[in-house]
């Protein structure tokens, strides 16, 4: 009997589902997301693909439920408790400006108004020494307020709690004694590192989204159980690892960006499969364009991020979002031509959607030029209105004094150049050269633009993975369970004894072991990754350096110099180096099927669908249109050719060639002839 591993990527409009059977090729499904009962849409989608849910061995999903609760400001009221004297650190939010030419600058709107930020006396020094004991009496009026005003969640961020958590724990104890139902989020448990504003912001965010995420997870678990699914429900974390729903309920903030990171994690799996260490991953949808990097087979990660200007301290896959997509609108200004950043979104959407949009978009230009067909989207389930696209393009082309075709190609040229410019800036700031990367294009609109972006960046090779529209969901099946642990460790590297360092790491690993085995993993399936945040003495920012177990410390320090050289273009091997944080990521190896099939050995459907006229460089070409489901390993064709599938359309321009590799990826290369 077949067994299944199943993943679901719940987006704002659609939910993508990937099913990996134990004995056959992967298949996918797409259903509408049901915002009122987010669990409902997923369950319907899975039922369409797997009739008996008891056959599911592993289930993982990514969701925007928590993120949406934040973006729509529908989380719960949170009260924040801080150290006396430092109350306003949270409201001042470090006093900086995100935009510099702004006379009417307004700070990002905080989740807790100043009136709900309270102080408690009790003071620690930077190294964790107690300068003044916690004054529990100060909590009395706060407890009184919580009770009177029916507040359900409290975040606690005390100065230097990363070095000495006891005061925060004492606060929780006192609150729990008086208010057993109260949900309390302690800053050192969310992020055990310094910087009180960022840590408070993270703890507040966790408390703020908690009930929404918790309600959703419980409902999903219950409904799946009712359908006889015995597998644990897993959820993707922003770090790129998965965790169980039970664990996610404790600290929901770690799942906040669980959707988009799937694509980059899929990139790391693709990197291993195809033996290409460096990938530039681009996910292009209707309104946004996400860029991320896989370097040496690893997802480029960062240790903090911002959501609408509010900082979050947590390990997170580094993704840059640019406001360009299929819905970007072309417009004129003082005789100049612009594309985006305004987007038609999905409502009204591009003119060709026939939902009332009248302005020409990138998608309209693709349709007008024949790169997209009227029946290309969702296997023809959504028909595009060619006349509406033509009309929109004609009107603006006329205004710009251009012929329709050069105008439409111009819209694409401008949007491609804009995306490529942004991609280049991202790679420059990371100290890498895009020409050493393979471009991986996914998302609904990515494979259509991929070859053109590669040309702009002088990249010779593009991978379009199987099921590009569901690539993020597929990525979730490729990763392991992961829990992160941090300990701030502020010492000069040359003054640290090996034993002390080892002891700290072992303590963190012990925490990791307890937490991962609680998720049902046997000791032999648990592994650890040690790393340290390090810097030159005097610097503020740190670089995260991997610390393999049992390494000698001199190697770690020289690894730091090398990492600094790579990231900043210089290093100073004689300058003193210091540790700031020690980190351990604990992994539980998720059981996978022996071989991941992503393409049938022999295609069951015919590849040729027909042909249409498509314009490249002002010339109309008779272009064959192929069905991707009909292509098998070894297929090879020169451009121009268009390859359609349910979730995306791949455009191979005339001077490019396409082939299907052993894993079923389409590999595009610039033709050498």
């Amino acid at each position, binding site marked *: 009997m077949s067994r299944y591993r199943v993943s679901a990527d719940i987006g704002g409009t659609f939910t993508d589902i990937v099913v990996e059977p134990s004995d056959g090729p992967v298949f996918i499904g797409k259903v509408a997301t049901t915002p009122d009962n987010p669990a409902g849409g997923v369950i319907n989608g899975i039922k369409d693909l797997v009739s008996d849910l008891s056959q599911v061995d592993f289930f993982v999903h990514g969701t925007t439920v928590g993120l949406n609760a934040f973006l729509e400001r529908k989380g719960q009221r949170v009260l924040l408790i801080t150290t006396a004297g430092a109350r306003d650190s949270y409201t001042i939010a470090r006093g900086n400006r995100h935009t510099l*030419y702004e006379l009417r600058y307004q700070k990002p709107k905080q989740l807790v108004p100043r009136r709900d930020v309270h102080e408690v006396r009790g003071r620690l020094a930077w190294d964790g020494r107690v300068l003044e004991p916690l004054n529990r009496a100060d909590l009395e009026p706060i407890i009184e307020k919580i009770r009177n005003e029916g507040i359900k969640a409290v975040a606690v961020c005390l100065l230097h709690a990363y070095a000495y958590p006891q005061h925060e724990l004492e606060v929780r104890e006192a609150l729990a004694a008086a208010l057993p139902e109260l949900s309390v989020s302690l800053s050192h448990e969310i992020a055990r590192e310094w910087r009180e504003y960022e840590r408070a912001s993270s703890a507040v965010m966790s408390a703020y989204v908690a009930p929404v995420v918790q309600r959703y997870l419980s409902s999903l678990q219950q409904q799946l159980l009712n359908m006889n699914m015995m597998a644990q429900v897993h959820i993707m974390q922003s770090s790129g690892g998965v965790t169980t729903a039970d664990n996610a309920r404790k600290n929901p903030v770690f799942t906040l960006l669980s959707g988009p990171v799937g694509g980059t994690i899929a990139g790391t799996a693709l990197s291993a499969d195809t033996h290409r260490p460096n990938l530039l991953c681009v996910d292009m949808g209707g309104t946004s364009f996400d860029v991320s990097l896989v370097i040496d087979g690893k997802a480029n990660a960062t240790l903090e991020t911002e959501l609408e200007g509010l900082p979050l301290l947590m390990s997170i896959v580094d993704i840059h979002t640019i406001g360009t997509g299929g819905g970007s609108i072309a417009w004129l200004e003082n005789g*100049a031509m612009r594309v985006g950043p305004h987007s038609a979104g999905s409502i009204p959407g591009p003119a060709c959607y026939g939902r009332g949009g009248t302005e020409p978009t990138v998608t309209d230009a693709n349709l007008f030029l024949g790169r997209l067909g009227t029946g290309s989207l969702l296997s023809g389930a959504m028909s595009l209105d060619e006349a509406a696209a033509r009309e929109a393009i004609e009107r603006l082309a006329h205004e710009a004094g251009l012929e329709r075709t050069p105008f439409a190609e111009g819209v694409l040229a401008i949007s491609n150049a804009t995306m490529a*410019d942004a991609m280049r800036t991202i790679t420059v700031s990371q100290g890498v050269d895009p020409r050493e990367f393979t471009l991986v294009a996914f998302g609904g609109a990515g494979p259509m633009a991929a070859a053109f972006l590669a040309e702009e960046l002088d990249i010779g090779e593009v991978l379009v993975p199987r099921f590009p529209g569901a690539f993020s969901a597929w990525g979730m099946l490729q990763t392991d369970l992961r829990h992160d642990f941090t300990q701030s460790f502020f010492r000069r590297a040359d003054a640290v004894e090996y034993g002390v360092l080892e002891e700290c790491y072992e303590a963190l690993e012990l925490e990791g072991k307890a937490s991962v085995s609680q998720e049902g993993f046997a000791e032999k399936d648990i592994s650890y990754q040690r790393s340290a945040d390090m810097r030159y003495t005097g610097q503020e920012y740190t670089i995260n350096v991997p610390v393999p177990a049992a390494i000698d410390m001199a190697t770690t320090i020289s690894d730091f110099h090398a990492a600094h050289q790579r990231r900043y273009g210089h290093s100073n091997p004689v300058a003193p180096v210091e540790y700031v944080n020690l980190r351990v990521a604990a992994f539980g190896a998720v059981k996978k099927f022996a071989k991941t099939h992503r393409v049938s050995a022999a295609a069951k459907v015919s590849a040729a669908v027909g042909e249409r006229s498509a314009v490249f460089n002002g010339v109309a070409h008779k272009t064959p249109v192929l069905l991707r489901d009909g292509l098998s390993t070894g297929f090879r064709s020169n451009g121009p050719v268009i390859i359609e599938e349910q979730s995306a359309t791949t455009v191979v321009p005339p001077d490019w060639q396409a082939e299907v590799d052993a894993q079923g990826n389409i590999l595009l290369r610039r033709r050498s002839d």
Partner: protein
Amino acid sequence: MSKVDPITTEIIRNAFIAIAKDMNATLIRSAFTPVIYEGKDCSVALIDENGDVLGQSLGLPLFLGNLEICVKLIADQHGWDYFKDGDVFYMNDSYMTGTHLNDSTIITPIFWRGRRVGFAASRAHWLDVGAKDPGTPVDSHEIYQEGVRWGPTRLYEAGKPRDDVINLLRLNSRFGEATVGDMNAQIAAGRTGEQRLRALFDRFGAKTIAAARDEIFKQTEMREREAVEALPDGEYRAEGYLDNDGLGSDPLLVKVRITVKGNSMTLDLDGSAKQARGPVNCGMTQTIAAARVAYKLLICSDVSPNGGSFRALEVTVPRKTIFSAEEPAACGWYFSSLGLLIDLVIKALAPVLPDKAAGAHYGDSMVITVAGLDPRNDNRFYLMIEPTTGGWGAFDGGDGANSLINNVNGSFKDLPIEIFESKYPIQILSYGIRQDSGGAGRYRGGNGTYREYLVQADSNLFLWFERSKTTGWGIFGGADGAAPNVIVRRPGEETLEFLKINGIKVGEGTVIRSVTGGGGGYGNALERDPKAVREDVLDGFVSSDYARSAYCVVLTDNLEVDIEGTSNLRTERIGIR
């Protein structure tokens, strides 16, 4: 002139901006000192062969529209052929660059197929350039005390570094290695600009790029002139005072007269204070740049600046004022007058741009420096320098921001208390938003900030706090914000109050409380919605007493609006007026 299609023009326009961004990313990535890679105290520009800006990254606002003037000044002195392929120029002379000697300007001429096609230029703040005291002295009265002056000097010639010159830079800094590191970062940024501009020329050719550039400049100029044309013709004036020159002078007048005529605008600074003895002077180049910042805040703020920008703006300054310093004027704290200048331009034009203007902000960087020996760290020397946030002005539709860094700063962030206390032998006793310091108005000015330091090692205190004479003023009837102050309590001694001081002893146990000013209000405070005043009281931004005295809003004991009491009080107040 050859014609180029709008698609190519747009691609080239975006490329110019992207090249500037790449240069900036390179500079920040490679810089040695945090003031550049964290504070973003830097700026870059891609400039064409005539010295006009093609693209600029939005770094430190104060350097807007400055780098191209430096290129033109060199050409004025030496002719355009002075720039050779493989050259890299350094300069920091305040009377050319306009700013203080710490700001390093590095210019790389870009050649393509043997002809000069442009320049990559950058400016970044270097930690130390050999002044009499570390960093920037607060009591200098001659530029020679502020560091080593460099006119345009080749760091590279024919593609080769001039090691003797670079060594001279290294030897004249207290942090020589970091200085050379930051210099290399600026040179790397120039290389990025050079490579990318050459690639753009390879792709489009010189003719197309020139035609696109002309078109881009024309479009920008057109948009700006339209915006200026929309202002009623006339003369607009404003004036204010700097507290003093740092050496105890009388207040220094800053006088702004703007004449709008048709589609152009002239800013005249005639009547402003003569060149001062203390370090508050700046060179003409930086005055023009500051005027451009003010203009940019009001006119076409959304357009990326290029060679077509600022053509509608002319700036005239008489010789030898604080805005047109000449040798040997000291320029170390050149920016204090410029923050005021920017605020005054906005004040002058507020009546005709009510939907763009805002009340004035707290005004200056409010820098506190404490230096001494750290007993926790083998009595090594420590140096704590930090600017302080304050209140910003209110505007039509919104209250001013509380505790925000001043307008001439970059991406400054305050130092978290947790990091601060680990770095310095000083404990932060309290840090917060200063109640009732924002000017009252229909929209409230932002509140200033207080920060209280407990010194735990024998040290020296230096202060540069400004704008106590001309505080953040309100507009359209809004009230002014409160003034700054610094209070020093030394154990067993009388409490002292200062704004500027050059080194007094502060021993262990000394408490320094700095307090910054608020922003100006917008509109009549009696028109503020009593509910909004109540919200401010609930959040503690305004006290109940101040709600009553400034807004005539009466609150009950449980902090509800007393509607009748409020109405009576407001009627009475209007009657008195």
